């Protein structure tokens, strides 16, 4: 049985005269591997910002697990299980990966207001951190300063932080963007190994990753949904081909 976990109804975002998001409807199924693609400037990141509450929508409604979350601030959407990663790493520079994850896991488990305990005192939190470090191949670097990590490791930490929030819906904003070839495979494997019960919306430029990973694809052009379907349907869609292979290529480099 399919169940919708995240739904956008007629989302519109205007910045002055520019319509960055144009009546977007989007449904994410439970356990989905849903990709959102589109040329540069198609409004993918704006859509993510609307979904996560960084930007207020001009019009429209967002539902998470059947509840309207359109008016909730970002941190409350996270508490309900809607978590994102960032296209440009957003890490905590002064902390080590271990400290970062210990902080995030504590916060997620409602210990974030505990001022009388020490960070690391709770054995269950530490055990969860060790799991995450192993899953994201960060165990060897867990004591190093985040700012000094190689780019690929920082990218992994970016995703580990999001998974530490125990998401029901995970929005991955270009997880492999800018990762050098040598570190890419590690990252792709961790994306593929994300827990099956986490529904994923993947925003990505990398078509290999999209077609390998996604079971459903939505194509966004000029802020509006051009089409949506299975990878086979999208791969053979003439409109999509036109956007990506025809004049779309110019847009891509614009």
């Amino acid at each position, binding site marked *: 049985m399919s169940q919708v976990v995240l739904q956008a109804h007629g989302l519109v975002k205007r910045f002055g005269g520019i319509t960055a998001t144009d009546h977007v409807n989007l449904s994410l199924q439970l356990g989905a591997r849903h990709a959102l693609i589109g040329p540069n400037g198609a409004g993918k990141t704006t859509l993510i910002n609307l979904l996560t509450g960084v930007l207020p929508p001009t019009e429209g409604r967002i539902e998470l697990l059947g509840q309207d979350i359109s008016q909730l601030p970002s941190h409350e959407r*996270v508490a309900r299980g809607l978590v994102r990663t960032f296209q440009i790493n957003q890490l905590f520079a002064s902390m080590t990966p271990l400290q970062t994850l210990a902080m995030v896991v504590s916060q997620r488990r409602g210990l974030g207001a505990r*001022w009388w305990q020490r960070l690391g005192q709770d054995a269950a939190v530490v055990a969860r951190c060790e799991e995450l470090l192993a899953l994201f191949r960060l165990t060897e670097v867990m004591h190093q300063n985040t700012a000094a990590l190689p780019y690929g490791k920082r990218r992994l930490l970016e995703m580990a932080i999001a998974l530490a929030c125990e998401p029901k819906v995970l929005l991955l904003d270009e997880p492999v963007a800018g990762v050098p070839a040598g570190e890419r495979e590690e990252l792709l494997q961790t994306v593929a190994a994300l827990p099956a019960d986490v529904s994923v919306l993947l925003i990505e430029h990398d078509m290999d990753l999209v077609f390998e990973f996604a079971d459903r694809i939505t194509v966004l052009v000029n802020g509006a949904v051009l089409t949506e379907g299975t990878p086979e349907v999208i791969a053979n869609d003439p409109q999509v081909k036109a956007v990506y292979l025809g004049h779309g290529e110019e847009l891509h480099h614009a």
Partner: protein
Amino acid sequence: MMDARSQLLSGAGWRWYEPLLWAAVFALPALLPGHALIVNEIAIVALFAVSLDLVLGYTGIVTLGHAAFLGFGAYCAALFAKFIHPDPLLGLAVGVAAATVLGAVCSVTILRGSDLTRLMVTQGVALLLLELANKLDWLTGGSDGLQGVMMGPLLGRFEFDLYGQTAAWYSLTVLLLLFALARRWVQSPWGATLMAVRDNPLRAAAIGISVPSRLAVVYTLAAGVAGAAGALLAQTSGFASLDVFALERSADAVLMLVIGGVGWMYGGVLGAVVFKLMHDIISGITPQYWTFWMGLFLVVLMLVGRERLSPVRWFKRGQA
């Protein structure tokens, strides 16, 4: 390699030399009774700097008006002693409570805006209070200061003496207790979320931390600690004057943190010791031009780097 848990806990807790250090400091008023007054002064400004470190060092709230809470605590404690009850501990509680309430009210002003906005707003609040204390002279004594504050004996037994020994021990005790409390705060999961807010507020919100509530709570708590420093100041000097609200007070505390290092609990204490001793020694030699040497010291400190100048830099590593 250390396992995750012991690594997380390794920065926390007291090291073996810390109790010795504090014991030595507590012995100072007895060993050098002639210097008890300066020990008292240093303990008070150290407490104020620790309070500032909570907001500036750990949470990244830029402020040049922290003296608002120091001054409010000072005046409230002094007024309480003069008109209601001379007991020092009651007065201390009143000073802390008053500054905490003021901190909670003022925390609304620092939730929004950039560093520059906060710099101006915090300074504005301190100026407002300064002028209020100046204008309400029927209550505060105006520019003459609030005089005739007579303190009762501490715990009903220890009179404040002229040499300032009781005062020094009283201030050191309050400093130690609040220092230990503040240290526990910053080493807790809650403290880690403060640093997350400081490092990256965007991501902090994206992992479910309510950034405004963290800012408001830490600002309020730090205001209470600053209020304690203010109460100690008024009680041990028997006097409260307008300069407790002055911009210089706030700026000096920032300088102390810069000297001792921000985001490190001993930074405020160390900075206060260095700053006050330099002030005392240099102004003893050249009373009019001591700020010249202070300025020179700051420039050298910033350009050469604290790490390279510090003789105990290896002790600092890994501590909170």
